[in-house]
């Protein structure tokens, strides 16, 4: 087959065209698998940040502002927003630093340590977001019970009861259930989003530890 022979000739000529890696570069390459996973963690953290910010900007309305105002939650929401965004930016910087750290690691031991650091950052990040959600939900629920459109009826009901303690107990229970549900949903979301990547990272980590031994 003439065409195949021609191709074979060219195939051999191509030999010198490939990049040549030295021993250090080859060694580094073998340990670099984690870097792409950590890079994705960084990208996802930014995407998530953009997504939530866009969502809050798009859903912002004068009506909503009024409700917040009437529930006397303006200051609470503003402080929460400032804290939230500053910490999120801090986390994104942290994710970026992790990514750089893992990318330039040369020894197995250092890489193992970096992977542990990445896992810690992710879990801190998730916990921060969950607590923010809990605080925001708690604040809005208390605001709406005390100052919301139905608050007078609720307070009236509490007065009419002989045992106000039980009444507020039930309200408290409802609040806890609502917060638990909100956290549950977010946790599920994070499990899907970061769980898969962390699992891959864990597998790689195990492999590294095995090789190191």
């Amino acid at each position, binding site marked *: *087959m003439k*065409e*195949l022979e*021609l*191709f*074979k000739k*060219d*195939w*051999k*000529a*191509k*030999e*010198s*065209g*490939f*990049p*040549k*890696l*030295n*021993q250090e570069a*080859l*060694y580094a*390459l*073998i340990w*670099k*698998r984690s870097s792409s996973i950590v890079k994705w963690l960084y990208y996802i953290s930014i995407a998530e940040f953009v997504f939530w910010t866009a969502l809050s900007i798009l859903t912002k309305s004068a009506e909503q502002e009024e409700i917040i105002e009437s529930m006397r939650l303006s200051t609470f929401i503003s402080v929460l927003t400032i804290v939230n965004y500053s910490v999120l930016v801090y986390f994104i910087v942290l994710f970026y630093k992790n990514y750089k750290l893992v990318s330039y690691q040369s020894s197995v031991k250092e890489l193992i340590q970096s992977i542990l650091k990445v896992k810690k950052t992710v879990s801190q990040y998730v916990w921060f977001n969950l607590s923010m959600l809990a605080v925001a939900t708690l604040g809005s629920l208390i605001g709406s019970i005390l100052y919301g459109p139905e608050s007078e009826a609720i307070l009236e009901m509490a007065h009419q009861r002989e045992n106000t303690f039980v009444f507020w107990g039930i309200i408290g229970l409802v609040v806890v259930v609502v917060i638990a549900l909100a956290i549950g949903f977010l946790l599920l979301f994070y499990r899907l989003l970061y769980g898969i990547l962390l699992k891959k990272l864990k597998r790689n980590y195990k492999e590294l530890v095995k*090789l190191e031994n």
Partner: protein
Amino acid sequence: MNKDLEHKFLIAFEAHQNIVHKICTLYAKDHDSHHDLFQEISIQLWKAYPKFRGDSKFSTWMYRVAINTAITQYRKEKKRIDVHDIDHVLFKTSAYEAYDKKEEEQLQLMYAAIKSLNDIDKALIFLYLEDKNYEEISETLGITEVNARVKMNRIKKKLKKILKP
């Protein structure tokens, strides 16, 4: 792996790294996946090296591990995306050699045809391009020599059919 073995492996790998690159040009679909496959093969070679007894040549062993890894990866990819876009496959010919246009075109077509083969056929063609005889091909792929010959003839026919339908 101890330091001595590590060192021995790196020296041999450095000398034969082109084998891995060439496999990647046949199995990877673009530049990024070329890099990923190169890395994956490097890792598998590294992991398998302590079991390499030296019964065969280092290069023969390397061919075997690298081809197996490429095939495994290829199957994983295949599960994800089942489309093969030949148009996007660009064959870069060596810059220093001046080909006439027709020859260049022929090379491109042949490259696209080889890339469209299945994973096993690709492995056979690869070893053929590497100038391996049937004995070496059968040893590397773990098939009989007769089987290798029969397969090779079939592949050549397939390629002909792709090139001149």
